[in-house]
């Protein structure tokens, strides 16, 4: 069936099978391979994207369920050459080692900062508790998100 999904701001129309999962729609149909395909069982969170702004595990959403909706992936985070503060935070604070979980972590923590611009470390840990970093680099991920929160705060109060 034909679906139109606004992916990173651009309306995109494709003819898909109803059983196609959103992860594979993004990766295989649109070649947006930034969204990772990990456990395939809703556990690891490598496939997190935003569906109408809400973080979801895209291995457990059908592409047809996103018809008419907006989907944001990690490819849409940066503005041209300017990284999003969460991306900068992950770079600055070594928030990644192998990088497999990173796209999902970035999408979840971006949504967290949109909702709660100054989250405590405990709040950050809760927000990413549905995501697995198999390098176990959680300490630095939490630091990265705190860095992004502070950077945004500084940017807002600057003249």
């Amino acid at each position, binding site marked *: *069936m034909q679906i139109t999904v606004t992916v990173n701001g651009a309306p995109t129309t494709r003819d898909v*099978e*109803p*059983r196609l*999962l959103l992860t594979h729609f993004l990766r295989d149909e649109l070649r947006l391979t930034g969204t990772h395909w990990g456990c*395939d*069982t*809703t556990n690891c*969170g490598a496939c*997190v994207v935003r569906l109408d702004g*809400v*973080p*979801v*595990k895209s291995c*457990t*959403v*059908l592409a*047809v*369920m996103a*018809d008419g909706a907006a989907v944001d992936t990690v490819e849409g985070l940066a503005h041209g050459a300017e990284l999003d503060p969460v991306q900068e935070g992950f770079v600055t604070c070594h928030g990644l080692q192998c990088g497999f979980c990173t796209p999902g972590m970035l999408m*979840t923590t971006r949504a967290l900062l949109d909702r709660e611009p100054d989250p405590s470390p405990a709040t950050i840990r*809760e*927000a990413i*508790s*549905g*995501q697995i970093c198999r390098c176990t680099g959680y300490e630095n991920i939490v630091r990265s998100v705190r860095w992004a929160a502070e950077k945004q705060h500084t940017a807002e109060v600057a003249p």
Partner: protein
Amino acid sequence: MQVPAQFAYEKAATVDEALALLARHGPESLVIAGGHSLLPMMKLRLAEPSTLVDINGLAELAHIRVAGDEVRFGALVRHAALLASPVAREHFPILTDAERVIADPIVRNRGTVGGSLCQADPSEDLSAAFSALRASVVIRSAGGERVVPVREFHRGPYETAVEHGELLVEVRVPIRPGIGSAYLKVERRAGDWAVASAGAVISLEGDTVRDVGIGLSAVGAPHFVAPEAEDALRGGPATDEAFAAAGRVAAEHCSPSADQRGPVDYKRHLVSELVTRTLRQATARARGED
């Protein structure tokens, strides 16, 4: 790669349209809401519906509102919305407690209250919480709607009173002034299914238990409740000793199975302890101490 079998897909915009689609596509069609139970089952080919009827567009089922002396939760309320609901927290903290330990925050963005109840997984938490609260569910069909006590809703693992061609549309919980409630779960890791969990709802008359509801999950309690423990407490003193005794009764009457989450005696021990603790916490809340 896990790929579901082929199916047709329909999107409903209203309850009436969803019911008409279910009728048209016959008994092999299934409703999909959050899909976080159904899609994994379809990937494993444990479920092979001919048609999926997507009800995510049914805005009429996403409400949480007070109506007279009850709170009505639409079937499409997401777990995240229930967790954040000030109405739920004020009247039924047992639901807030339970939501905090259901799956993880991303899954809670998608999974729904109605979906969880209809999935009827024997380890599901809201079934135990709503059973402790003596909630009712509203089931609609083309012919009208019926209201079923949640304690009669579950027919067994993965089986409920919802027949084909019907839709669970709402959960109703009576507001009783002066009640306290709480929920506790033991899990092996964050976001996992329960090893065992328990919920308690209590109303007091002075230091006497006027009424009590005890819900259990993951331990083979029929209809997710512990009626023998409720009977042991009702009309008696609201003391720690009575709560501990009720915990022992609940542990004795449930039927946990040994599995990778633990042996039977450990699960019974958890039931005893969790029932005792939730009764204590529910009582503290009823007295305004927590």
